[in-house]
């Protein structure tokens, strides 16, 4: 898939101008080794395999897919917490793929991350004040005397009581901890915030609070989000565009409304058909696409289209031999499928 195609497929809405983040042919393989002293490589996990992705300033790009499909790895590649095996990561026009830690410093200020588990992402031995203040101390953007007031402003901003400055993480509830994580990510006023399943560890009642907080902050600070989740309704609520991943590949990218109305890739269709409907009468009419079998191992992914062993539309041998490129469908919609869903199938799935 070429980048030209992607940019022509760019959509209406907020996705305009030069992309803030651009992934070009990014691959991440984790080696599997054996042996204690002389380690030999016996295989590799194809965690992310040839991903092209663009995130535009001010938009929210949702990334969905089941566990182990490479969503979080992609996020960590953008953050440069992992080094890419192949491909390039371009941030705001600069290639940051091979930058050293020191050279990364200015870019670290521009992008931050909110983590999935609010219980694991805060150091249990540090006070809230020093956790949120750490970005200031590392980047020295604020003088030492002013850090406390800055931190307390941030705490107020995310809906925490600034009086709790000296408390420890274990004294807070999950939702409050996630607010702490948001405050830390916001400290340096980044352009991009990567949210790695920020609400999946929280109660449903708290999820809405955090999501609304994120939306408010986006409006206030013109933030760009890469929003990872496996909850499709959360992604629908948050995202301008949605990318669907399967086994380390992006199988479909489309504006949220388009994807939820007219999914093209059978996998997207299957995901959408799995959303429960609250109305039992409607739910009865709905036809679920139930996928057969399990996700194949990313150590040895299937040939051709990676989805072909489980795909209801698969036709052989084309699907098992030829890897489908991302092709344009509706405005801004790209799907990597030889035999995409037609509208009849889509309507059956939706049952509306």
């Amino acid at each position, binding site marked *: 898939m070429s980048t030209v195609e992607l940019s022509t497929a760019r959509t209406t809405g907020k996705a305009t101008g030069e992309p803030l983040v651009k992934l070009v042919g990014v691959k991440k393989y984790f080696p599997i080794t054996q042996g204690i002293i002389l380690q030999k490589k016996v295989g590799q996990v194809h965690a992310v395999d040839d991903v092209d992705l663009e995130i535009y300033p001010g938009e929210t790009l949702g990334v969905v897919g089941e566990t182990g499909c490479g969503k979080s790895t992609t996020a960590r590649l953008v953050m440069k917490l992992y080094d890419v095996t192949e491909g390039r990561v371009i941030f705001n026009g600069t290639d940051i793929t091979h930058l050293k830690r020191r050279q990364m410093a200015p870019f*670290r200020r521009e992008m931050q991350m909110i*983590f999935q588990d609010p219980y694991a992402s805060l150091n249990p*031995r540090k006070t809230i004040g020093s956790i949120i203040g750490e970005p200031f101390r*590392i980047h020295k953007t604020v003088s030492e005397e002013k850090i406390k007031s800055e931190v307390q402003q941030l705490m107020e901003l995310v809906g925490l009581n600034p009086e709790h400055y*000296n*408390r420890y993480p274990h004294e807070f509830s999950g939702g409050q901890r996630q607010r702490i994580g948001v405050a830390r990510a916001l400290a340096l006023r980044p352009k991009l915030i990567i949210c790695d399943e920020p609400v999946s560890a929280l109660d449903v009642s708290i999820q809405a609070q955090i999501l609304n907080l994120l939306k*408010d902050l986006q409006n206030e600070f013109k933030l760009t989000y890469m929003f990872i989740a496996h909850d499709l309704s959360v992604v629908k609520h948050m995202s301008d565009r949605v990318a669907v991943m399967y086994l380390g590949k992006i199988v479909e990218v489309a504006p949220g409304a388009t994807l939820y109305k007219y999914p093209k890739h059978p996998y997207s269709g299957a995901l959408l058909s799995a959303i429960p409907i609250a109305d039992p009468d409607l739910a009865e009419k709905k036809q679920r696409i139930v996928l057969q079998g399990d996700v194949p191992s990313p150590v040895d992914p299937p040939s051709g289209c990676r989805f072909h062993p489980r795909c209801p539309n698969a036709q052989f041998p084309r699907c098992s031999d030829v890897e489908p490129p991302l092709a344009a469908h509706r405005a801004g919609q790209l799907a990597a499928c030889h035999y995409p869903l037609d509208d009849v199938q889509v309507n059956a799935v939706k049952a509306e």
Partner: protein
Amino acid sequence: MTEPEAGRDRTRDAANQPLPRDAELGSETSAPVEATAPPVGAPSSAIPPSEEPAPSGSTAQDAELESLYEQGLDIKARSQWALARRRFLRHKLAVGSLIVLILIFGAGIFAEQIAPYSFSEQNFEDGNLGPTFHNQHYFGTDVLGRDYFSRVVFGIRTSVRVALLVAFLSTIIGVLIGAIAGYFGGWIDNLLMRFTDLMLTLPILAVLLVASALLGEGSPYRVAIILAFFFWTTLARIVRGSFLSLREKEYVEAAKAIGANDRRIILRHMLPNTLGAIIVNLTLTVATAILIEATLSFLGFGVRPPTPALGKLIEEGQGEMLIGHWWLVVFPGLMIVAIVLCINFVGDGLRDALDPTQRRTT
């Protein structure tokens, strides 16, 4: 976010919040108040213990709650250390042991002031005395008429000095090697850990005896340095293991995402979370070092005479024991047993107190 929204969110959070620390405090300082009115009592007990406990009555408590929120900014966080101290102080055996240890170590430190004689002063008229109050020979005298109480007190000083030095040095080496191996991983980890394995396969006692034989009996410091060289292995493995797991924690990842360098991550984020294990290991090393030093001295190596060390005293006394001079072995032996036992109890207490997952303070 608009201002009223923020305010509403906050109050809701504040109301939902369990206030765990305050509840803890309540259980100790104002238990009666809590018993009479548990729902309102819990938050009100967050008032520092210096203030008068409120009479049970909801209006008074509400007022207190108000004033608490007003002065809230000044409420200092009780640190993890304070919590650990509280937990430790509830461990009766450990506290008792600590007191005994302080007494014994204090006797060693102030040996000059406590001992009625110098450790080498000979008085042939009073030779081979059993424990007696005559001339303050509480632990008796040896064949040369040296006061045994004085020798034991000075022996404590030597042994404890060696043990503390061993613990200190081996902790530094162990933390350094373990942290580097665990944090960086890869071939560095491999190299350091294989070296550690090699050290662990050495029969320590045999090697120590050979080293002592080659170098001869020497100053307590030399003995300590040789011992330290063999004692860091366990700690290195503990620290490495802990770092391996900490490295994958999200808060370490978060620190990297912020742009923290390796030194900051190791010192500020990972080491504090390993500190419990390190401190406990340190206390246990002190106990082991005292035993090994005693063993070495007993076998005739270690500290050079006439400087007394506890093991050395037993070695000198062993022949005499056969002719009924039991005090020459029993008193230094008792000291070793007391020190090692107490250190182990203190170590147990510390391990429980420093475990951050243990919230229970009662």
